[in-house]
């Protein structure tokens, strides 16, 4: 397999992170608000930020492993 494709072999494992991201976003947001509406809005924003941050790290590591 091409080294650049190796991260794709692990992609199924990445799905395990989604329930964790949802749980963490909801619980963290629930400790900042009392009403459901702001909790859900905050959780959606936080979850998106976590996904974007982790994607950036993933791309960085994939590029690094490709170049090394």
């Amino acid at each position, binding site marked *: 397999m091409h080294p650049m494709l190796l991260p794709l072999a692990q992609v199924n494992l990445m799905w395990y992170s989604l329930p*964790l991201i949802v749980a963490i976003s909801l619980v963290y947001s*629930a*400790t900042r608000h009392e009403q459901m509406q702001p909790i859900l809005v905050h959780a959606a924003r936080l979850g998106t930020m976590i996904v974007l941050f982790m994607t950036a790290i993933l791309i960085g590591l994939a590029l690094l492993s490709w170049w090394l």
Partner: protein
Amino acid sequence: MSKAAVVESSLPPDEVIDLKDPLVAAILAWLVPGMGHFYQGRTRKGVLFMVTILGTFFYGLFISEGRAVYASWVDGDKRLPYLCQVCVGLPALPALVQTYLVRNGREPLFGGVMSPPVDVAALNDLWKRLNRQLDLGTVYTMVAGLLNVLAIYDAYGGPVRLEPHEESPRKKEDDEPAESSGG
């Protein structure tokens, strides 16, 4: 009622929270995630905490075939993740009973769920058999425990809030010029 606490600073009137006895709420929140909030009448948040935290915990337990949560403090198997997992409260406590039984040479209950490996060879077999499932289950159950720490704090002290109209220091200076410029 003397111990009761009410969170009301900087809240609209419909959001004043009666925390009742915060210590009792915190203990209940530790025992069963969300229970402290039910005690305080914060039902929706109680349901949210219960579903998310217990869902995460039991999913981790499920994918590891019930072996990610166990208490062990012997040479070669000091189970530090249990310190996080036990923050979930009652659902993690059977591990202590299982450890007591196994260490005293008796058969564990429930088909060995939450029971520690009897020796290092059994521990190696467990890792060979479950491999990444054990890792993932450990992560899930640890995260569930740590999330319950947040829920316990919320039950004890109410939601952590930013000031609703947090003003920049510059704006504050504009609002009160006379006092600071007097010299």
